[in-house]
């Protein structure tokens, strides 16, 4: 890396070398049985230079050919965007715990055992369920050095468990599932399988719903699948800068219900999306996005912040091809005080949405969403009476979140990077196939 930086400095005004290496061990179960044990070693090196005020990029996986990497970066800099920022100088970083050395010493046998335990628990409910499960451990090392002397070094561990159950009756298919992740090893599977068993129990009967406008409770996974994707786009500084965010010019305004608060937070200890610095060496910090319904901030990387005349929020993130852009770390919605049961009890006729399939594939910039309720339940007179099918829900998150009846006290992590409670929305449009 030092050699890459030294050569790049000779060819450009400024340079930064980013290197990530990862060792990952997924253990996979198919059709209730152990099927695959994998081991994945990977690394890539990304060089970013500033030459004649323009940015050049080159990325290489595996062994590095230094002269080639530098000349490619120089070639692309000729056409590159004009830079408006300086790379960070040496800076102190917050102490955020993301490494538990115990993860790398979890044995394959132990991982196999965790998978078997989850499958046994779910099949204990119903022998006909076909399960897929995965147990995964990963150790990642990140190093960044730049021509101003800035330097970041950290190691991160991730341990993840997940199970999906599939139950077929005639041509009717039911999907249930749950997952969990942490920087610590996870040795307890019950909290995961209990969620699946509860889904199976609630979906035991089918219920007929009539298409109309009705109250809807989005469970944490329902919020993650339907409501979060448009918000992730709207708070992205890049989309704000382009004028394509519907809330881009509304800082300080009460756009949402005052019960709603949202922050981006890479500083929570032992979470897989946490980190001491972002991918261009800016110290991590948490950024309030919605404070009691008011728009508070947007997220930025160095270049976007420079163009917008503001400062990076430490959200510079590299995608799989190494390119930098602002991206959320962990999106955290502040929990409320209402329990899930209280929400259900409050509804005479309504719907609980656990998973909305296809919700993020429309015009998310406008906040519109529309999807099929892959897993959801009908509420009748304050009780869940069964699973709904052939049901489509659509709406606009800005209308939907303007008035929330209640924010749940049941917040949990969804998919590793979203922490959210259930949200109870008073009026949502529901269409049902007859």
């Amino acid at each position, binding site marked *: 890396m030092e050699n890459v930086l030294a050569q790049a400095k000779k060819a450009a005004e400024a340079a930064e070398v980013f290197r990530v290496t990862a060792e990952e061990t997924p253990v996979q179960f198919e059709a209730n049985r152990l099927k695959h044990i994998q081991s994945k070693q990977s690394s890539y090196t990304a060089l970013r230079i500033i030459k004649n005020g323009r940015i050049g990029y080159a990325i290489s996986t595996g062994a590095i050919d230094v002269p080639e990497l530098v000349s490619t970066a120089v070639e692309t800099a000729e056409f590159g965007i004009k830079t408006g920022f300086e790379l960070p100088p040496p800076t102190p970083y917050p102490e955020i715990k993301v490494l538990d050395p115990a993860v790398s010493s979890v044995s394959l046998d132990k991982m196999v055992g965790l998978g078997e335990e989850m499958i046994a628990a779910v099949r204990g409910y119903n022998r006909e369920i076909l399960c897929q499960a995965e147990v995964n451990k990963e150790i990642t090392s990140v190093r960044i050095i730049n021509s101003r002397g800035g330097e970041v070094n950290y190691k991160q561990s991730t341990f993840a468990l997940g199970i999906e159950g599939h139950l077929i009756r005639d041509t009717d298919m039911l999907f249930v599932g749950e997952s969990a992740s942490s920087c610590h090893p996870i040795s307890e599977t019950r909290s995961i399988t209990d969620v699946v068993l509860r889904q199976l129990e609630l979906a035991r009967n089918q219920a007929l719903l009539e298409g109309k406008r009705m109250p809807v409770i989005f469970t944490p996974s329902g919020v993650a699948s339907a409501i979060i994707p448009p918000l992730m786009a709207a708070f992205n500084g890049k989309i704000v800068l382009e004028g394509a965010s519907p809330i881009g010019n509304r800082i300080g305004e009460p756009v949402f219900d005052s019960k709603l608060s949202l922050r981006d937070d890479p500083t929570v200890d032992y979470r897989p999306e946490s980190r001491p610095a972002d991918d261009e060496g800016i110290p991590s910090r948490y950024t309030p996005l919605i404070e009691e319904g008011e728009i508070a901030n947007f997220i930025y990387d160095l270049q976007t912040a420079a163009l917008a005349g503001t400062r990076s929020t430490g959200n510079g993130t590299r995608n799989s091809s190494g*390119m930098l852009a602002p991206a959320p770390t962990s999106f955290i919605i502040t929990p409320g005080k209402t329990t899930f049961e209280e929400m259900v009890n409050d509804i005479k006729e309504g719907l609980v949405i656990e998973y909305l399939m296809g919700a993020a594939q429309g015009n998310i910039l406008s906040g519109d969403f529309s999807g099929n309720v892959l897993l959801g339940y009908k509420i009748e007179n304050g009780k869940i009476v069964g699973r709904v099918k052939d049901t489509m829900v659509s709406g606009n998150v800005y209308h939907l979140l303007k008035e929330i009846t209640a924010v749940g006290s049941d917040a949990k992590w969804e998919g590793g990077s979203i922490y959210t409670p259930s949200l109870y929305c008073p009026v949502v449009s529901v269409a049902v196939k007859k």
Partner: protein
Amino acid sequence: MPDIEQAAHRLAEIIKTHHADYIEARLEKSRSTYIKYRGKELESIGKTSSAGGNVRALIKGGWGFVSFNSLDDLSERVALAVKQAELAGGEKSELAPVEPVVDKVLTEADSNPAAISLEKKKLLLDEYNDIIWAVPKIQTSNISYGDSCKKSVFLSSSGSYIEQERADVTLRLVAVATEGSDIQQVGLSLGSRGDFGKVTGLHQQVEEMSRNAVGLLSAPQVKGKEYSVVLDPVLAGVFVHEAFGHLSEADFVYENKRLGEIMTLGREFGSPELNIVDTATIPGLRGSYRYDDEGVPATKTYLISEGKLVGRLHSRETAAKMKEKPTGNARAVSYRYPPIVRMTNTFIEPGTATFGDLIGDIKEGLYVKNWYGGTTSMEMFTFSSGEAYRIRNGKIAEQLRPVTLTGNVFKTLKNIDGIGNDLDMNQGGGCGKDGQMPLPVSNGSPHIRIRHCLVGGG
């Protein structure tokens, strides 16, 4: 670039020293270029070079898989894959027999995007961006161009040794229009198997896209309910991929007895006019290849013939377990992943109806075009249009906001009651499954009509 051929020869020797039911290795090197615009400005431009490989071993039905970037320590990688397979195995290994293949498949010189200068690529995108911005009320644009050239070497313990090259070009353009707090967008996705010419000369289409985005600002939303819908070939291609293609991937079925019963060959899924095909054998399409990532030659597979289920897509393992013939559909998005059952180029074969026939007797319905995306849970699927128009009394009427459509595969295919005579393939898609995406595929269809299709409203 590292010498993957030399590493492949070393691996071939190492594999001989191990005992397993089957071992294979795949090595790859690739170069890719990307250029992105956001708004009037170029956002980023860069080049990536990548090299790596994997070893996969099968023992008593259990698979071990090791992937790596570094081509050192190959002996240890093979040993680890074998050890993992031993730990995972406990039953019987089953793989459909295939003849070992020794072959070399090189790309043609005229389909090498790496030979075209960055400057020429950028000039073309500048032209497209200028066209988008010339339309009033356009707030911003997104252009994302990428190309790659990949060489891979596949070898197996049964004696196969296959070198293949492939090139890929993709282009996605989006125009975003705003008025007050309303934001609308329309996109255009294109791709080719390396032919840069296929993404040039789109100036008129780009302008139409931009005007469509502005048009959406004044378009009303439809009410969510069942409609008669006519799909254009692009969206119908996404529909056939999501609604039926994934369900015919045998890895969902081969260890799932219940699903196997539902997916019995001969089951009626649609009208006798309905024929659905998957094939990697058509030259020039993005899903095409000579050999899949298990070294099995590509085939043409009828999934539905005259409305009945007649075939499915297989890897060597799923074919053996279901006692059917391998179809050459095991594909991996890169050396970081093991091959799994995937589609290639999937389409509905053309029928006889003209567009006028399809819309002629619809009193109130929707004409839906272009795509945002689609997804499936096998039984249920959703897919979303990029554009929508009302059909009133047999004629195309006003423009509407794009819609999401949903359905149940066992009912919806039967509700197709009109198939056009105008097959067109969409090359702009990328498919995702089990974390492996985007895999180059293409899908296509003629215009089709679906009765009683559930549409989400506003």
